[in-house]
């Protein structure tokens, strides 16, 4: 707890889900630049290979694997194949794969969208932790980073499924951090706001909300590379929460100190727009 521990992001044996694009790709590339060997898994194998090419072209080591994180068998296979490729157990797992969903209020959003969003955004990290936490605990060293979102505490209207899934990831990470304390395994949870990624195009979001999110992302978005660097540094310091942007920090503060007021203000703001 005191002093400088080993930097887990250096020379890691890392598994990154959703590494084909966005924050996942940035994590993979940054970990490779920090000397790590990286398994890049994605549901889009071509995208995963693109990330692997970008890493190997610069002299790094990486492997592309197909993995649908909403299927537990895929995640189990991912752990097996990664371990056999590393020739050792992984030391860093980043549960990043996620999709965007929103634009409609509760009751209007289809249950199919709910199931789809929770299947990937919530069950993905659950499977990831279920499969990898015992491996890391056994090894007695390593780290797990779960990518949540500022939505996990922001609870903005018209994106219930996304908020619920990310709130679940936040709670999952907090629980896991407590369970793994003293084992040598660090847990961090990343809560960004807008990052310049393709989550809007690839998600199920209504057109009006897509346009708004595009504008917000363009002008307030942080680059995925910055987010990944900040998060890995925070993880190395042993931080549980990583909020790379000021707006996330402010929102987090208000939500904790005045939760009811926060929600009322949010409701008012959404009625006015």
């Amino acid at each position, binding site marked *: 707890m005191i002093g400088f521990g080993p930097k887990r992001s250096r020379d890691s044996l890392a598994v990154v889900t959703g590494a084909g*694009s966005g924050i996942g*790709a*940035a994590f993979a*590339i940054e970990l490779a630049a920090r000397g790590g060997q990286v398994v890049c898994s994605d549901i*889009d*194998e*071509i995208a995963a*290979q*693109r*990330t*692997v*090419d*970008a890493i*190997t*072209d*610069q*002299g790094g*080591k990486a*492997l*592309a694997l197909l993995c649908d994180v909403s299927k537990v068998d895929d995640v189990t296979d991912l752990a097996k194949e990664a371990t056999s490729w590393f020739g050792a157990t992984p030391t860093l797992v980043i549960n990043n794969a996620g999709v965007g969903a929103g634009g409609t209020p509760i009751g209007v959003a289809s249950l199919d969208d709910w199931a789809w969003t929770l299947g990937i955004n919530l069950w993905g990290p659950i499977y990831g932790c279920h499969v990898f936490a015992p491996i890391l605990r056994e090894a007695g060293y390593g780290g797990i980073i779960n990518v949540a979102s500022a939505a996990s505490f922001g609870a903005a209207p018209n994106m219930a499924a996304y908020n619920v899934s990310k709130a679940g990831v936040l709670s999952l990470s907090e629980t896991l951090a407590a369970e793994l304390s003293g084992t040598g395994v660090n847990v961090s949870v990343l809560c960004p706001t807008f990052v310049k990624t*393709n989550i809007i*195009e*690839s998600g199920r979001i209504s057109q009006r909300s897509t346009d708004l999110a595009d504008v917000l992302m363009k002008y307030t978005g942080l680059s995925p590379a910055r987010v990944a660097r900040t998060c890995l540094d925070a993880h190395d310091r042993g931080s549980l929460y990583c909020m790379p942007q000021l707006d996330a920090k402010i929102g987090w503060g208000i939500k904790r100190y005045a939760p009811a007021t926060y929600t009322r203000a949010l409701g008012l703001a959404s009625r006015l727009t």
Partner: protein
Amino acid sequence: MTASTTVRAEKSPVFTADESDVESNAFVGLRGSARSRIAATGAALTLRPITGLIQPEQAWGLWLSRQIVARTMDVFGPSLSGTQVEPVDTLLADGRRVVGEWVRAKGVTRTDAAVYYLHGSGYSMCSARTHRRLTAWISKLTGLPVFCSDYRLAPQHRFPAAADDVRAGWDWLLETTDLPASRIVVGGDSAGGHLAVDLMLQVAGIGQRAAGLTMFSPLADVTFGLAAAREQLRRDPAISAAGAARLVRLYYDGIDPAHPRLALNVADGPALPPTLIQAGGAEMLAADAHRLADDIRFAGGSCELQVWPDQVHVFQALPRLVPEATKAMANVAEFVENVLRANDTSLEGRETA
């Protein structure tokens, strides 16, 4: 953007070559030299902001782009000392015009084979003159005469002017040197690589096959879709994918980029001659190099892909800036020697008999 790249990706099903990539990187080393990393960072801090402001559709923009590239290649290019240049401007019997130059380094007298070089251009810049230091170096290292085509450039001359000129140059070369296609090695950088692949596919139809094909940072996707996807992962130090696409669009403006001579169908086409592709790890066209290598192998050709970590676009032309250029060119010389020797077995048999 996402959708279109996915469709293109599905067209060629090969994405398995990670072992060979690792191999080629083991071959070239894990990191670029300090000088090349400084050069790439320097370019990202100085060149990229400038190229971002240049409008290639404007006369001043194109002029400035041409000046920047020409000056850079002159300052950091290899020595021209002792090089003999023989300009060519002639008409073929069927009326097609061939413009270019023979480049022979000091002491080069071989006539048993030749290199046909297609300079890079973004289809609208550069010339045999800007690339003379590079072609002279190739001549010096291989001991072969190099014919560099001065194909017509956009925006004055649009698709397929450049490709037709390259073909005319090939026909003239075979006629005037009396060499069979199997004694000619074709080289090209950037858009010249695109032209070289098009030429190989064209002449395969009439049964001609070059001894080998060597390309530096070849362009495969003229819409820069592959490059744009790579740019999301790592920014090119010299130019944005959108900026480069605007430049190349001057060439095919008004023509569907899916035209078979623009979106070259390498994967389904005839097998290309033995190929060496070199690209830089820091540049966005590394993605094109991967695609081209995968497609060539899928079509049954043999292709060695070397991606040099931390190198910029066509770093081989800048040996006074990056030390890797010399090492990479040594590989090219070895490749040229090997493909010519492989084709030479019949000749050797006759000589000893």
